[in-house]
């Protein structure tokens, strides 16, 4: 191709094209939402409410980080919400002595949950990468497995009376800043570092962009595919732990509304659903769009039916902008 129309912008219409608008759609959308709510509510843009908002998005955010790895690799993990439920219930029932005859120390309970997550995530990953079963199917199966395991370890009862040490990460704060938010941002930064500066991150983009080409280049595609699903499962354990702190208990349906929001956040943040393009900053923006929308509408006192309509409209516009920005 000798001439690329986008190589040297020389008129104003090249700067303000549909594509540019689309590319910056997520940021513009977020800024727009913030402006709208700041002007229409008394308390939206106050420091305590912004802290609330960050607290409210952190669990979805942590799950979304794991999903970003998976989606960048052109895979999908449908089991995150149920995995979070299962690992959370496992920790809770081990730590309160509901599962074994006596309570086990919290670090042991948490390690057990990580082990369970790695085994189950590894199973999804193994079946996906070794046999070429789409991750959509393997993680769908894992969704049921994890749901069942969660009901078994909890006897389908909410578990309360959790030890304070277990609640610290989700409900405590450090220097006045909620731990749950700190955990989210630390994980976000670490994950962006992995994407930008490690070989695994590089391989991830390569496999997500074109798995065949990546294979020819000598990248172990199977390991990368398995790796992202194990990674995503690992994040669900952390999400489970902060969830317990946030709600003060572990309930057998605590993941019920969390299957789609993390995936929606990733896509809203500009990550390509078909892999190879995107980053963690985009995911943060996507998570904040979802969070500010529900927080702002609550503050405006919009009734529940109106909220659903508003959410549908904003999501539709955001997704449209996302696709238009895709060139």
């Amino acid at each position, binding site marked *: 191709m000798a001439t690329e129309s986008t190589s040297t912008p020389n008129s104003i219409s090249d700067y303000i094209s549909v594509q540019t608008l689309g590319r910056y759609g997520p940021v513009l959308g977020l800024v727009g939402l913030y402006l709208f709510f700041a002007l229409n509510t008394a308390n939206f843009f106050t420091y305590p409410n912004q802290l609330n908002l960050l*607290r*409210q998005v952190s669990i979805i955010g942590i799950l979304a980080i794991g999903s970003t790895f998976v989606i960048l690799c052109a895979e999908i993990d449908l089991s995150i919400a149920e995995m979070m439920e299962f690992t959370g219930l496992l920790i809770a029932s081990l730590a309160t002595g509901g599962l074994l005859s006596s309570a086990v120390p919290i670090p042991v309970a948490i390690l057990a949950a990580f082990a369970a997550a790695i085994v189950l995530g590894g199973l999804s990953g193994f079946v996906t990468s070794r046999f070429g079963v789409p991750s959509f199917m393997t993680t769908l199966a894992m969704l049921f497995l994890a749901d069942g395991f969660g009901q078994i370890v909890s006897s389908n009862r*909410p*578990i309360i009376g959790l030890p304070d040490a277990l609640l610290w990460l989700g409900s405590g704060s450090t220097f006045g800043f909620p731990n749950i938010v700190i955990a989210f941002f630390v994980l976000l930064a670490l994950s962006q570092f992995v994407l930008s500066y490690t070989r695994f991150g590089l391989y991830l983009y390569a496999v997500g962009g074109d798995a065949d080409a990546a294979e020819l280049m000598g990248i172990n595609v199977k390991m990368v595919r398995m790796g992202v699903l194990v990674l995503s499962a690992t994040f669900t354990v952390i999400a489970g732990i902060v*969830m317990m702190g946030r709600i003060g208990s572990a309930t*057998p349906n605590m993941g019920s509304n969390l299957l789609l929001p993390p995936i929606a956040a990733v896509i809203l943040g500009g990550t390509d659903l078909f892999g190879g393009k995107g980053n963690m900053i985009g995911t943060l923006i996507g998570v904040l769009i979802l969070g500010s929308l529900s*927080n702002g509408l609550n*503050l405006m006192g919009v009734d*529940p039916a109106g909220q*659903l309509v508003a959410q549908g409209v904003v999501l539709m516009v955001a997704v449209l902008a996302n696709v238009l920005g895709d060139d």
Partner: protein
Amino acid sequence: MPSHTSRRAVLKGATTAGVVGVAGCLNLGSGGDSDAENQTALSVPTLEFTFFARMQNAFEAVTDERDDLGGSFYDAGNSQEQQVSDLETPISQGVDFIMVAPITAEGISPVVQQANDADIPIVTIDRNISEGDIATYVASDNVALGRRSMELCRGFMTDLADKDQYNVVELQGTQGASTTNDRAEGGSNAVDSADDLNLLDSQGADFSTEEAVSVMEDFITSHGDDIDGVYAHNDLMALGAHQAVQSADVGDIAITGIDGSEAWVQEIQDVDHYGTLAQLPEEMVRKSVDYGLQAADGEDLDDYYQIEGLEVTSENAGQYLDDYF
């Protein structure tokens, strides 16, 4: 081709292991005395809700206690199609009566028709159906539960402070669910009939603790100290409201729910201004069995039997936990 063989062998082995494992988990073939004189079946929407899990326990207890009754339990896993398939089995086995908590009012119409044709009485529990003949319907009245929970909340608010007006916020359940609509109606009836009660705000939190924490935080941001009480459509959301109120430092706020779940009642034990209206799934199952047996004998029944909710406060919380958990 050796690689082919090994791959197939692995798949085969894995499948076998999976089926055996799943069969083990589901405890296939369970369910009471199969040669007892009367046979029945109970189908519930999903064991995800403790409420239906308690029904399962009650059902197993009843079939164990009674020598003249056996039967099978079915969990539809929230799939309407699954519930239809589940019910076809007992109908083809010709059980004496069927108890069902339908997922939707319309969804099981075809099997209800089949049961009617086969002269098998159907007792609906907790939720009713829109078409077809049933022997009777056994349930709590959600409008009444909503009204009583709101009134309980008002009682706590007047205990906490002496004011001219009490401001209450409402945490609604899943939008569109009949339980949500009924409990909202009951709540607003109570607000309308009390001069000193003001519904400050109302939002949906999907019957979930986590959603309720977020929505309650936003209520506190908007209304702050103006909030005197919270009426939650279920106990899981009451638990979430409690969590948000605790970390927000806004003083004492009355909170009431509906359902009588173990976790919330344990909180109620220690706090005088917390309460709930307990639904009694055990009672529902036992009554349904009685009515079902009567219907199988050809007796005439009323269209509807109401199971009264039990008011649980710090005074009787311990007793309630002892009785039911």
